[in-house]
Every structure is written in C-alpha cells, then in structure tokens.
C-alpha cells in the first residue's frame, strides 16, 4: 500500500494537505503526518513512504536538513520529495538542489497541483 508523508509544523497546513489528498485515501493510499523534521526522519525510515510533502521552515530540523539526510546520507532513492516553501522568489533553489529535492512548490499552493503531483509519482 502506497504511503504519503505530510510534514509541516502548522496544523492548518497539515489538515489542508490531508483533505486535499483525501480522494487518494479513498483509493487506498495511507496518509501519515509529522510535525517537525526529527519526527519526519524517523517516520521516513520506519514507514518508507513513496512521496513526502516537506515544509522547509520548521523547528528542531528544517526541511533542507531532512531532505539531505534522506537523499544524501541514507540514499533512499525511492522517496520522492516535494519541498513546500512560503518563500516565493527568495527561495534558495541551489540549497534545495544540494539537499536533493525532487520538486518545489511555493505556498499558497494549488490543491490540484498537489493531487496531480501525487498521482504522477504514485502512478495513479
């Protein structure tokens, strides 16, 4: 069963993403939540999700560090990382590249874009 991990320190944003991806849940996808970087890393190692929606600005461990850990240190090639950023044009694409992110989405994001990306990655 395919798993999607949602990581954001803002509860509203977690809820928004959960509701956005609801239709996939109906189709059998499991949605998992994390509220900070540390938790995210643990869950990624334990649950091995196919897709991770990863916020950047978080306490304890930010999105770049999580991505770097997953992609570079743990070399988990099957985990697709979508970085969520509220930074718009100030977003540091280079940092994202170095961390190994697969794609970036700026907030406010379009729910259709989120669902679309999820379907694409999971092949649904």
């Amino acid at each position: 069963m395919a798993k999607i991990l949602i990581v954001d320190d803002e509860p509203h944003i977690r809820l928004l993403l959960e509701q956005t991806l609801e239709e996939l849940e109906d189709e059998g996808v499991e949605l998992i939540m994390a509220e900070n970087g540390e938790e995210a890393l643990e869950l990624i190692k334990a649950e091995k999700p196919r897709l991770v929606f990863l916020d950047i600005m978080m306490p304890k461990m930010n999105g770049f560090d999580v991505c770097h850990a997953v992609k570079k240190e743990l070399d988990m090639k099957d985990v697709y990382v979508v970085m969520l950023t509220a930074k718009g044009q100030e977003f540091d694409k280079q940092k994202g590249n170095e961390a190994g992110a697969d794609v970036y989405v700026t907030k406010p994001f379009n729910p259709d874009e989120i669902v679309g990306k999820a379907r694409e990655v999971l092949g649904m």
Partner: protein
Amino acid sequence: MKNGEYKILLVDDDPFVRELLESVLVDGGYMVTTAENGKAALEAFVSDPSINLILTDMNMPEMNGQQLINELQENILDVPIIVLSGNKEIDVVMTALNSGAEDYLIKDEFIQDTIDIKIKKTLEKKALKNRNLQLIADLSIKTNELENALSSMTAIINNMPDGLLVTNAEGLVTLTNPAIKAMFNLRDRDIIDKSYSKILKGTLIELMEKTGAQRDGLFTSDMDLPGGGIARASATAIGKKSSFRDIDYEYIGSLVIVRDITMEKEVDRMKNDFISIVSHELRTPLTSIIGFTKLIRKKLEDVLFPAIDRTDGKAQKSIDQVSGNLGIIISEGERLAALINDVLDIAKMEAGKVEWKDESLSLKQLIERAADASASLFQERKLLLLRDIEEGLPDIKADGDRLLQVLLNLLSNAVKFTEKGQVTCRAVRTGDVVTISVEDNGIGIAKGDLLLVFERFKQVGDIHTDRPKGTGLGLPICKQIVEHYGGRIWAESEPGQGSVFFFTLPLP
C-alpha cells in the same frame, strides 16, 4: 619711481650752497624744497608729508643738523637723512651716521657728481626697507590664516569618528587621530615615526602598499576590528602639485581612513531577516485561506450542490451566490498572494537586496518560455500571440527568472487590456542594445498616463469587471529589473488603437 616723483628737503644756512645744490637736484629731476636751519626744516617736514629725503648741513644756527636728526628720531619721524659736511668734520659725520643718518656728502668740488648717486642709493634702500616691512606684515597674516586652518583641521581630525592614519613618502607614520588609536589599541609613542608595516596588520598593510604602487585611486577593503566588529578601510596616495619644481605630481605619502560599519552590517542583516520572516508569516495563513476555500468549493460542487433540489428557486439562487462568493474569496486571496510577492520584490529591489543569478541567456528561448507560461491567459481570452524575433541575436548575461518576470508582466498586461485580436512580441537589435517590445491592439493608454504607469500602485484604464485587479507594482518592478541591467523601459500608445511597451537591454 622716477626722480621727479621724489621730493627732497634741502637744509643749509648758506644760501649759496642752497642755491647751488637746489639747481643740481632740480636738474637731476627731483622736486626740491629748502630750509635755512634745523627748526625750519622740522616745521617744513612735519607740514609736508610728501618729503622723501632730507639733505642737511650740520652747522646751522637755531637747530643744527645733529639736533635735527635727534628730533626726527625722538618723534619717530621715519625719513632718510643724508648729511652735508666739510672735509674736516669726520667726527661730526660719524656721530650723525651713528645716530640715524643714512649717508653723507662732502661739500667739495665733486659734490655735484656724487650727490645724485648717493640720493638714488639712499632712496632705493628706503624702498627696500618698506617692501620688507610689507612682506613681514603679509607673512604675519598668512601665518595666522594657516594657523587657523591648521587648528580647524586638527579639531576635525581629532573629532572624526572614523580612524585616520597618515604616512610620509618613506612609509613612516606622521599623523593619527584618537579614533584609529582606539580601534587598533595604538599609542602615539609606539607609532609616530615608525614604519606602517610594523604597526598595522594584514589588510591595512595591503591597502597602504597599493597606494605606494599606484598613485591614483582609492583602495577599499572590509576587515575585522581587533575589539570585535567590522570596519571598512580606504587608502589613497597623497600627491602634491609642486609649485617650485618642474614635476607635475609629487608623492608625499599615503593615508588610510577606517570606518566602523558593524552597525550597518547589523541593520542589513536585520532587513534580510525581516523580509524572510514577513514573507513566511504572511503566506502561511493565506495558504490556509485559499486552500480550504478551494476544498470547500470542490466539496460543494462535487457532493452537496448535486444533492439539492434544483427546482427550488430559492435554493438555486443560494447555490449561485455561494459559488460566486467562494470564487471571490479565492481570487482575492490569490491577488493578495501576488501583492505580497510584488511588495517584497520591490522592497528587495529598492534596497538592493536582490540576488541576481546572472547566466548566459538566449533571447529567443526566453521569449518562448514566456509564451508557454502565458499560453493559458491567451487561450482564455481567445487572443493570438505572435513572435517576431530577429535572427542571430547574441546571448545576454542576466537573471533568466527576472527577465521572464518582465516579459510575463508585459504579456499579461497586454492580454488584460485587449478585448480581441492579437499581441505581438518583437526582439530586434538597435545599435548596441536589443529592443524587445510587446504590442497589443487593445484600449491603449492616455498620453498623460504613459509615464504614470511605471509608478507604484498607479492603475490606469478600465478594468473589466470580473478580472482580478493587478497589484499596481508589476511595471515598477519591471522598471527596477530593466534598469538594473542598464536598460530603458517605456510605453507608446494611441488611445483606442493599442499600446506598445518597449524595453532595451545592452548587448555584450
């Protein structure tokens, strides 16, 4: 002065001598006035300020020559005196000379020849003396002025918050100020007359060395201060345009000024942090607002509305209203998001805080990217986008995302203000710049507004009803971007017939 401008007072009790000498002097071109004794002479001198020289006999009644000299000296009447004497009166002459007379003439057969030259020399001497006094007076004034200037300079240097250090042409320190001593923990006795290479460290030595090698220019570098903090140091050579020698420029030393910029750097950092925080804090709630509203709309349209009885008129009206309202919330939310982006953008640009990621760009590709990105806008309004790009345009070095931003802005404006027809994007080489233009056949812009559109928050023209309004910052941002690369941006238009927006970029 010509002889004729000098007046001589001739004093002798012997009328024959007076007559003789007067005629000699008059022949010589001098003006002459006479007196028969010392007393008369004194009176004549005091009442006639134009007398330049007194020629006086020594033996005279009433007041003799020596007494006359004494009187003149005592009253500090400054006039050159030549005494006349007979052959055997040397001691009288010596006394006269010692008490202030300038010279003497012997009343012998040669007097007619000697008199002129003696008078000339005496008058010359007096003129020199006067000039000397004048020079001393002038010097005194100049010295005073210099002292004042020096005092002011010293006060300025000592009160400057920036550190100052000056060396001579041999690299020895000649001047410092309290600020630089404080910054680098220096004491005068350790630094004056010492070579700068022994006192300063690292960066400062490098800067000073550069001034020795290159006489023109200011050399600047940032550095850490020993006590903590950051400073900016600037060094330059001191040159003198020599007034006496033949050289045009004489290197007489170097100076370095050190400014503490710790506060400036801190403020900079705070500005950056603020912009970062603001963008994050503003966008997060907006994400929820837009996101949840879209989800609500989807749920309503997919699940709830179909479950409602459409024949109920009231219900139908409510459905329409709710749908419409949700649409408004979403579009206003998206407009707010765009506004936040633009405000932060222009704030960064005006503060010079934008990171320009310059790379080599093909204009053709750039315009194609813009066309692709705006394709949906054109389709929505059923407008045509034409491209006319000159062949063989060289690549330019610039930030692709920012130039894309300019093009997208101009294209979306063109779409916004055109009912039907087409928009043409052209790129052509004109001299040493490339001119890119976006032309539409829309409603156009009034002449008075052509410059106004590039100002912040000024919106012109009719905005059609349900189109989201622009942010009012699009064109000002385009202007910042274009001007950053040294280009120009402007608009031309004929109301009712359309507009063309041009911008230029310098070619490498």
